């Protein structure tokens, strides 16, 4: 409570650097303010990587815990969002590799249940159902991708981050980031296009 109150008292224009310096000197309120600023960014990314709310929340918390533990390692030339997303990326990649199959199965089951529960609440049930079906196919195709492809696709095509940022998050060159995105898009097309083709009604 005291930390939250202290955070509200802080000047609105306080930069990330000032907050980091504050946290480094032992003032936890500075770090809490950083958490409030960037937790949604991390959570959105983690959710798209895992497609599980609980897991995304857990990854978000763990990301900030690790950031707090390694705050002394943060270099000022990097952006805090880039640094925190790099931690989140590593965590997501590790978990995605472990739980790829289990998560996909749970998503399929949960998606099926959700369709039946929400079908009566939409304006155009047929159109909504078609969109849900396509979304399910996309989710299936994205889940089937290796974690490194999924990471760059979400960063570039979902989060719409620029290549410089992606390069900083992945700790590679801009050219390397472009190449990774290109490969990931090819991999997505190889998986998604056959699924979409098969799901279309035959004439």
């Amino acid at each position, binding site marked *: 409570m005291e*930390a*939250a109150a202290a955070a509200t008292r802080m000047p609105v224009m306080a930069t990330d650097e000032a907050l980091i310096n504050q946290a480094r000197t032992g003032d*936890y309120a500075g770090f*809490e303010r950083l*958490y*409030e600023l960037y*937790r*949604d960014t991390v*959570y*959105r990314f983690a*959710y*798209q990587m895992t497609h599980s*709310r609980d897991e*995304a*929340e857990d990854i*978000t*918390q*763990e990301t*900030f*815990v690790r950031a*707090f*533990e390694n705050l002394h390692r943060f270099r000022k030339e990097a952006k805090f969002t880039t640094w925190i997303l790099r931690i989140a990326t590593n965590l997501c990649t590790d978990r995605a590799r472990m739980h790829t199959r289990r998560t996909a199965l749970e998503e399929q089951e949960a998606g099926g249940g959700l369709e039946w529960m929400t079908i009566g609440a939409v304006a155009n049930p047929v159109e909504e159902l078609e*969109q849900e079906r*396509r*979304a399910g*196919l*996309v*989710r299936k*195709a*994205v889940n089937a991708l290796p974690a490194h492809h999924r990471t760059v*696709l979400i960063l570039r*095509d*979902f989060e719409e981050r620029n290549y410089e940022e992606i390069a900083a998050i992945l700790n590679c060159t801009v050219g390397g980031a472009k190449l990774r995105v*290109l490969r990931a*898009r*090819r991999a*997505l*097309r190889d998986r*998604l*296009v056959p699924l*979409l083709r098969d799901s279309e009604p035959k004439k």
Partner: protein
Amino acid sequence: MNSKQLEEKIIALAYGELDSNEIEQVRSTIANSADAAQLFEEFKSCRDAMSLLPAAPSASLGTERLRQRILSRTLRRPALRWGWAGGAAALAASVFAAFYFVNRTQTSPYAPMPVSNPGIVADNSHRAAPTPAIEKTVEPTAPIEKPTVTKRVNRSHRVLRSRSEDVITAASDSAAVNASSLVPPAADKGASFDAAVATNVPNSPNDSTIVLISSGERGVAGTSRAVETDSDNGITIGG
């Protein structure tokens, strides 16, 4: 522009990342090639499909939860560190104990003292005199006469001695030899009976009747035979 470069341009166009001066060129290529047009449509559908991914639902990411997690992690760390330190100390103690034990056994009172200068003779008078070795005296239970070896046979054959009632004399060569009643001789264990296979050692030195029972050559089944040997006269019966 080769096919790979064209594919990269088409992907860039589909995702809206192509430079403005290249757009017209790639568009004209797509208009003239069905394959290029299909490729463009496929990548465009992939780009549109990404927008179908559901947005993240609202999460409960309170600051209190993070604080608890950070606190629990920082409180757990010293204990963990001490745990490692304790483990390392235990390991060091066990290594020291093992080294001390080995060192102690090597410098026993009976071991000669190491002398760096060969001219100096170590004074071991203060040490206890080593216990003299006990001489083992083995008295033979019966006089052993080495039987005449008639044939060299395999070492895998067992040396057996019959009981006194099973002794077969030279005269009763037609009597059946009950091989199952033969027992191994206690005094013959060290004797060189490498040729004998089965024998009944005489009860007295004057009794010269020895029965050798061979089970045949190694690896050849069903070739058992009985051999009677008179060591005094060198008579061998059977085979």
